[in-house]
């Protein structure tokens, strides 16, 4: 009894370990607080400030949110962005899943090379990739040039660039690797013995895919889709570069013009807060879904998870 009252050498050691842990955590915690949490807090506060004659006042009000939900433009834009993001997500998934499957199971010799080929574009600046589409789709662009040279068209097509289709194409191109990575990670971690056991139990290759591989890969699919959806919904560069007259078609572009052009910071902040809320709800749902599909087997290593997406997605928003 009395022994437990006095601090033992072990207790002292534990206390000093805790102190060191705390000291080590100070820098990253401080970093996140100053550069992420505080800005979010300012943003949140601004959304309740009143704008009077173009001047920001510190009077608290809910009228920014009133205007946001009262003006059709804002909900419409948010819904349109979500629709775009959904289509980008579906297209990315349809491209990424078969490719991830091939990489994980079919390719033997050049697997790393091919995986790098998919991943390397991620290291190329986003702007460069978006501009590349301008070069391909433009009036003097590669695609028009090619079509004219083989005589399919006489005049350059102007519908290619500056449309929501061009934006969607670029977004699919940019975010497909994000969808692929978690799916590939999950597929690769499925033990070969599961597939063998399935085939040993009379399941054809297709039945094995449907009954074993696909269900076990769903956590990766959810993670990948969350990446694609959140990132493309918050994107504002592709619409600016490729969206033309509809360049404010995505909600992030709206936020940019509210802050930068209209100088209506409170309304911009309100839109941002709504976007942030939607993103958080989505990420929470995705995390819940992933947890439910985790079976504790070797195939269930965490797949990077959607947590990093929160950072990037909301930076765009």
């Amino acid at each position, binding site marked *: 009894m009395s022994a437990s009252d006095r601090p033992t050498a072990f207790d002292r050691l534990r206390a000093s370990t805790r102190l060191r842990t705390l000291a080590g955590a100070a820098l990253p915690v401080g970093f996140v607080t100053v550069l992420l949490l505080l800005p979010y807090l300012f943003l949140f506060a601004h959304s309740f400030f009143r704008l009077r004659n173009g001047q920001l006042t510190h009077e608290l009000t809910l009228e920014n949110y009133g205007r946001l939900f009262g003006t059709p433009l804002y909900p419409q834009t948010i819904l349109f962005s979500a629709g775009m993001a959904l289509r980008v997500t579906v297209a990315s998934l349809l491209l990424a899943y078969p490719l991830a499957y091939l990489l994980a199971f079919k390719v033997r010799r050049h697997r790393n090379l091919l995986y790098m080929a998919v991943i390397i574009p991620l290291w190329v600046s986003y702007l460069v990739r978006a501009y590349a589409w301008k070069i391909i789709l433009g009036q003097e662009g590669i695609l028009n040039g090619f079509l004219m040279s083989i005589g399919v068209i006489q005049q350059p097509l102007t519908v290619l660039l500056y449309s929501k289709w061009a934006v969607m194409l670029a977004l699919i191109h940019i975010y497909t690797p994000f969808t692929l990575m978690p799916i590939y990670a999950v597929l690769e971690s499925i033990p070969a013995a599961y597939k063998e056991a399935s085939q040993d139990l009379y399941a054809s290759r297709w039945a094995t895919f449907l009954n074993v591989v696909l269900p076990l890969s769903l956590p990766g699919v959810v993670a990948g889709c969350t990446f694609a959806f959140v990132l493309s919904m918050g994107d504002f560069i592709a619409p600016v570069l490729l969206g033309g007259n509809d360049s404010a078609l995505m909600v992030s572009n709206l936020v940019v013009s509210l802050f930068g052009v209209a100088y209506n910071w409170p309304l911009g902040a309100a839109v941002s807060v709504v976007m942030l809320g939607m993103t958080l709800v989505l990420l929470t749902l995705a995390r819940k879904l992933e947890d439910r599909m985790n079976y504790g*087997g070797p195939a269930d290593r965490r797949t990077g998870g959607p947590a990093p997406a929160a950072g990037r997605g909301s930076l765009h928003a």
Partner: protein
Amino acid sequence: MTPPILELRGLTKRFGSGVAAVDDVSLDVAAGEFLTLLGASGSGKTTTLRMIAGFENPTGGEILMDGQPLTLLPPFKRPINTVFQQYALFPHMSVRSNVGYGLRMRGVARAEIAERVTQALEMVQLGQLGERAPRQLSGGQQQRVALARALVNRPRVLLLDEPLGALDLKLRKEMQLELKRLNRQLGITFLYVTHDQEEALTMSDRIALMRNGRIEQLSGPREMYEQPLTRYVADFIGETNLLEGTVADRPTGGPADRRTALDVAGVVLEAVATRTWREGERAWLAIRPEHIRPAAATDGANRISVTVRDLVFTGVVTRVHSTLKDGSQLVFHWPAEQTPPVSGTTLTVCFPSERGICVSE
């Protein structure tokens, strides 16, 4: 004699361009038999099993089942099921779904599946755990589910790839008896892969001891233990003393007498010959420690003079480590009723000549 259920004909597997993992293996498996492929890692036993299951394509040779070639059929078309080393239970399915998987894939009616799954789970004493997920079961229970999942399909041949490797010793012994019981009871042919010679001796009707992709010896467990053909077999199965020597003489008592004499370090010892030997041929004398005892004055033949080095008390027996004049080692069990010798003592030991086996390299 009934025709074999499974025949391997010159089965060969090469990975890449390297050496053969399985090298020209031929083997007949009788219906209902418990046959074990025994061998160290890399001996080709698992590769052989995987070719029979259909997970690997042979580089050469043939696999026949009931006389029909099986070699080109994919795994899902073979009337064979496998119990995997790490069980490979599907983590996203309940125990019942796991067990019923094979029946579902073959389109068996739902009511029949339910009935057969229940039966199979009762057979492995897991009747109440059907709704659990595999991860909620202990290793031993998962092992039983894997067994039920394979047996519920009533395969012609059941392949078992070191299925007891992950279990603790006590559970392993229990499961060994259980597997043997199921083999007898169901009449299903068991083809079992293990590196554990004791496990092989306990369960098998016959053992194929594999080495470097070939079958070194194929025989019943007792024969393999008592009459090893080669030095490798004698050494792999149980504990044995191997004394190098030369064949000293032709068999002494005519062709029916399967005995020979071996010159070991200047002493002529009598041993069983499992084949014909030429005089002067290099050979090894294999004797189990339990067959060597201190010589009495009345023991005439097979006397060896040794110097005692160490005594090891193991509980069941006292093991004596000793050396011959030429320095070779000899281990034997000291009789419980006699006082153990002290280290450094020189004494004479002997063994019955029917217990010494003359083996080749």
